[in-house]
């Protein structure tokens, strides 16, 4: 497909994806409060509309009607820019995420992805790092000390964890040899001819998934990494001075970010739109235009549903974590990022690289056994990591108390 139909199809897909993302954001704010309620043995919002679904609209109306405040000390252009920057990266990121199997249309096969960029998830990493500007600018331009502190904390945290986020995807590149996102998805399906692995990457790379997930949590500034907000310490950090719709935009940005990260986890590790244990949906378009498999509208819809369910589950886990774990202390956060995650990811990359080298050397064909071998290696790595983390208790800020012990015992 090229020319005018391509432009029209891309426009439709872009608008569709954007609209669906925003709708999903609305649902996510509702789901978050419901889940929070359930976890705390409450029922959450359930009075506006059927099972409380219209609560989101009521909140939206309230936020639009509220007064917009502009602090006297605010630096105006940046103060207005920050909320826009908060929404932008998250919504733009969704462009490289494939939602479902290609749909047959009268104008040719249309892939369900807004932009099949050849730089694939490098784009994700590049755009994702813009998010830090929203936090930093919002904090600095508000002209309030709490906002500034929140902004500084936020930018330091996001930059630290970006390293781990990017590195946690390296094993994925080692396995796929390609950064194009649709290619990564089809690698997780079963195709003849040795190109694909036939299993979701959650099996051969589940430690990698864990790293990506933790770094993703930190990137989206959600608990237990909500340093920039920290309402008990910083009021609400970088968006303290924002009100009404501008505040809403930060919230929309946060939820859009969560959904995007959920979609990315799905695409990279949970097989994207692949329906498990069924090969009927294994459809891909080869570079020379040859179509493998039999695309149909029904299959596209089914895969779309599969993708939605998986993303929803990942987002649900995000919320579950948020309402369980308490916030880290700042030094613990930095320890975790630089002293644990970074090292662990680097070692993990080495291990996976060596394992792949060995498996290729043994001449094992890609597929079930290949994945099983990597899975075993992952199990070992996970066991060692958990053992170390358990014994050395990195995250409790053990270094501080160890230093104090040494000092108390008459050293230093």
């Amino acid at each position: 497909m090229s020319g005018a139909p391509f432009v029209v199809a891309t426009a439709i897909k872009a608008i569709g994806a954007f609209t669906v993302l925003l709708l999903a954001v609305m649902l996510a704010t509702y789901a978050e409060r419901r889940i929070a309620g359930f976890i705390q043995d409450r029922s959450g919002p359930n009075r506006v509309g059927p099972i409380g679904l219209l609560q989101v609209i009521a909140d939206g109306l309230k936020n639009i009607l509220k007064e917009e405040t502009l602090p006297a000390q605010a630096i105006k252009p940046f103060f207005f820019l920050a909320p826009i920057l908060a929404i932008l990266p998250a919504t733009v990121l969704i462009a490289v995420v494939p939602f479902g199997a290609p749909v047959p249309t009268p104008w040719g096969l249309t892939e369900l992805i807004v932009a099949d960029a050849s730089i694939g998830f490098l784009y994700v990493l590049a755009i994702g790092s813009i998010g830090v500007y929203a936090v930093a600018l919002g904090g600095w331009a508000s002209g309030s000390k709490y906002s500034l502190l929140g902004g500084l904390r936020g930018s330091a945290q996001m930059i630290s964890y970006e390293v781990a986020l990017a590195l946690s995807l390296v094993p994925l590149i080692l396995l796929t040899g390609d950064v194009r996102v649709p290619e990564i998805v089809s690698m997780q399906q079963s195709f003849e001819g040795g190109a694909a692995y036939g299993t979701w990457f959650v099996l051969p790379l589940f430690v990698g998934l864990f790293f990506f997930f933790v770094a993703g949590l930190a990137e989206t500034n959600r608990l237990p990494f909500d340093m920039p907000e920290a309402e008990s310490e910083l009021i609400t950090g970088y968006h303290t001075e924002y009100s009404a719709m501008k505040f809403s935009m930060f919230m929309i940005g946060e939820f859009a970010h969560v959904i995007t990260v959920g979609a990315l986890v799905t695409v990279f590790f949970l097989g994207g739109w692949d329906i498990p244990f069924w090969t009927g949906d294994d459809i891909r378009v080869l570079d020379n235009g040859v179509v493998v498999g039999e695309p149909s509208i029904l299959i596209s819809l089914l895969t779309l549903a599969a993708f939605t369910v998986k993303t929803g589950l990942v987002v649900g886990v995000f919320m579950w974590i948020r309402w369980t774990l308490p916030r880290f202390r700042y030094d613990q956060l930095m320890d975790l990022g630089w002293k644990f995650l970074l090292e662990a990811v680097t070692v993990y990359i080495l291990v996976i690289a060596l394992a792949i080298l060995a498996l290729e050397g043994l001449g094992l064909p890609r597929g079930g056994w290949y994945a099983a071998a990597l899975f075993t290696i992952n199990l070992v790595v996970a066991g060692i990591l958990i053992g170390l983390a358990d014994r050395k208790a990195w995250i409790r800020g053990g270094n501080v108390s160890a230093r104090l012990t040494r000092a108390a015992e008459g050293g230093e």
Partner: protein
Amino acid sequence: MPGKVKVVNRPESEASYVRAATKGMSITLKHMLDPRKKTQQYPDEKWELAPRHRGTHRMEVHEDGRAKCVACGLCPTVCPVNCIKLVPAEDENGERFAAVYEIDEFRCIFCGMCQEVCPVEAIHLGVHYENAEYSRERWVYDLERLCEQDHDVTALWDPADKASQ
């Protein structure tokens, strides 16, 4: 180093983030999936009040609709917060009745002494609590309004029933 810092060396099994986090996640999951929610869906689902709940007053009436009150003046006397206003009057048969009888439910502390002291069992407290109003004046119940109340009256304490003490 200035001062002395006390270092609590907890056993590693207690200090481990991994174990604590896993335990926490399983606890919240259990609560999330538990269908029994503690929130009472209030307007749809009302409180079950005890028979001795002391709430909004209610005046008992005779069959012909007259209030049973004989304007003896005991309840305004006993009321600890002075919220009962009584103006007695006498009809042509020489029977006393309350020309004005008002209770300010806003000032009332629902002690129940008016009900206990009433010689003709006219004034009662009731098993009822939904009496929000938009103005303070509306909280002053006059005789007519007291007679109109139709909720259950509060049961008095039965000294023989030790369990209800």
